[in-house]
């Protein structure tokens, strides 16, 4: 149940039996392919989800940086992000386990939409918890969840972001655990979630590892992925962990790495870079917390990275020196967003944009062959980006006047 000193099962007793049941199901269905579960899952990922996603050679970026840049196109997955890999896996597992109802939390709404889509596809009931603040930042995703037939439960506690949504979903689960599965949205939470979600997301690096050898004739020198909770990160890294490839987890530096302890706010989401060990949402991991151990309110321009914790396996790989944690601030992420949109014709999620900002800044350190995981597309972020860009001086942005009504 642990990754080195991280992980574990720090949850209310009421949930422990369900977690034990899940652990059992994970072993039987996922690890041992009982009843052909994994075959079914992979077939659905292919036909419903659109896998494999391409590994695209990025011509403009390769020319710009003088090295071969490849993009793992998870933005092309159904729903627009890597999230479906996990949501479909867990919803299907719940179905194999005989559960009737799915609950999930969501930050940016990507996991919520992926879960809602998966549940519609599988004919399961679905309720999504989402912080009120995130609901207002990500309206299109709210609409999509509702259109797919999911119920939406706004969470009004705290700052109304992912952290609160997870807490609230755990409370629902503590009530409904007998017929309900909680589809956690990242490689976080109590064991077996971090391992199971990683296994569902590992298809990213399985494909990428094969594709890059075919296209570049060898393994990459570096793999870059943005890191909030860390599911696209672990998905993109997993199969490369045993290789001699540098792995960069790009966190949200937000507006500053400084912490406002009195206000309880860390204006970033860089738990790997700046966090300390603690226990949150079922696992021991690196956290943004004050000196007493109270969890800080995190911040990022991208809702999907806006979380005070991170997956325990990533924390472990960072301690081991296998993964390098780096971070990029809000301005950098917006620059990365606009740059990729214009240079490659791919509008990335704001989360993903962090990885491209790091590429811009540090490309000289990344070797000859670089893979960037394009974890999602930016359709959900259009309004936020327009608003945030208008408030700043973002060099790579188009003239924003055209976005102000009166077209």
């Amino acid at each position, binding site marked *: 149940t642990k990754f080195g000193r991280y992980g*574990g099962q*720090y949850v209310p*007793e009421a949930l422990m039996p369900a977690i034990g049941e899940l652990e059992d199901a994970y072993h039987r269905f996922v690890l041992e392919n009982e009843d052909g579960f994994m075959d079914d899952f992979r077939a659905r990922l292919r036909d419903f989800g659109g896998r494999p996603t391409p590994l695209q050679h990025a011509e403009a970026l390769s020319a710009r940086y003088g090295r071969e840049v490849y993009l793992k196109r998870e933005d092309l997955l159904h729903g627009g992000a890597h999230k479906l890999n996990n949501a479909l896996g867990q919803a299907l597992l719940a179905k194999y386990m005989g559960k009737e109802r799915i609950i999930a939390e969501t930050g940016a709404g990507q996991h919520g939409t992926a879960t809602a889509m998966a549940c519609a596809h599988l004919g399961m009931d679905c309720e999504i918890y989402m912080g009120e603040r995130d609901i207002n930042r990500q309206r299109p995703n709210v609409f999509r969840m509702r259109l797919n037939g999911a119920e939406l439960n706004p969470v009004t506690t705290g700052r109304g972001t992912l*952290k609160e949504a997870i807490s609230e979903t755990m409370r629902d689960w503590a*009530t409904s655990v*007998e017929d309900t599965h909680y589809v956690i949205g990242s490689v976080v939470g109590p064991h077996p979630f971090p391992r199971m979600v990683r296994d569902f997301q590992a298809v990213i690096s399985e494909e990428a590892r094969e594709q890059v050898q075919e296209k570049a004739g060898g393994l990459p020198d570096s793999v870059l992925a943005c890191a909030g909770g860390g599911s696209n990160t672990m998905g993109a890294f997993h199969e490369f962990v045993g290789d001699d490839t540098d792995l960069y987890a790009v966190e949200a530096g937000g507006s500053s790495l400084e912490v406002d302890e009195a206000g309880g706010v860390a204006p970033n989401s860089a738990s790997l870079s700046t966090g300390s060990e603690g226990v949150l949402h079922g696992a021991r991991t690196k*956290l943004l917390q004050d*000196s007493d*151990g*109270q969890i800080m309110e995190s911040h990022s321009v991208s809702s999907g990275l806006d979380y005070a914790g991170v997956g325990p396996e990533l924390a472990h790989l960072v301690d081991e020196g296998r993964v390098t944690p780096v971070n990029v601030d809000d301005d950098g992420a917006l620059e990365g967003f606009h740059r990729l949109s214009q240079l490659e014709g791919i509008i990335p999620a704001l989360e993903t944009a962090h990885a491209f900002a790091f590429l811009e800044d540090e490309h000289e350190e990344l070797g000859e062959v670089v893979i960037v995981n394009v974890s999602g597309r930016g359709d959900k972020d259009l309004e936020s980006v327009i608003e945030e860009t208008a408030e700043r001086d973002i060099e790579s942005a188009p003239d924003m006047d055209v976005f102000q009504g009166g077209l």
Partner: protein
Amino acid sequence: MSQSRIDEAFADGPAFIPYLAAGDPDVESTKEYVRALVQGGADIVELGLPFSEPIAEGSTIQNAIVRSLKGGMTPDTYFDLVDDLDIDVPVVCMTYYNLIYRYGEEEGPEPFVRRATEVGIDGFVVPDLPAEESGPLREACDEYGLDLVFIVAPTTRGERLERIMSQVSGYVYVQARLGTTGARADVSGQTDTSLGRLEEWDVPKAVGFGISEREHAERIVAGGADGIIVGSALVDIVAEGDTEEGTVAERLERKARELKEGALAGAADRPQPERP
């Protein structure tokens, strides 16, 4: 193991165990409220140390925690509060594991337990610490002679029960129903089932989650419970503040008395179980 202060609290009939969130709305009020509860018949006091992510709590206690944290409550303030309490019933600290884990300079729960012992805390309830992860805290409690209360949920069965039984001390917190804390209008049928599963245990069984009325207390104790734990119903009184029907302290004392009487009536309704 020698008899702890908590064990003693169950010795003379059913125990009434009220819960309050420390520092809600401020430290001085909490002291006054705790004294009122003791006055009303509390046998043990569960005093919550607020954590920012109280995943096991319903909205009543979540809100109390928000008020307390806004008022500046910290682990050190909490310990000082307990140190000043001056009551003659045992105090159980209810909090989440991260605060225990993070306290003090050294790693692990020992500094927290040490300090708790110094201020006169008798035991802990940690809702997010199942038996699987409780080793270090259990060790520290043993070192200082403190009790570690575990929750048994309606979903807890078989092997898990045994694991908890091997770790628990003081009392077992019988969760009356699935879900989070919060006052309810009825008694869950799950309570009797859960108590049935624990019949053979020789540790006192205190039932919590949803108890708010005298008659709940009576029925639960009549059903075999050794104690009742009441939180949200009391926190609601704190949240209301002083009213025409009395100050918060007066109403807390009155409610405590009502619940304690209920428990006693329940005990009278059944043959007293054997006690160790």
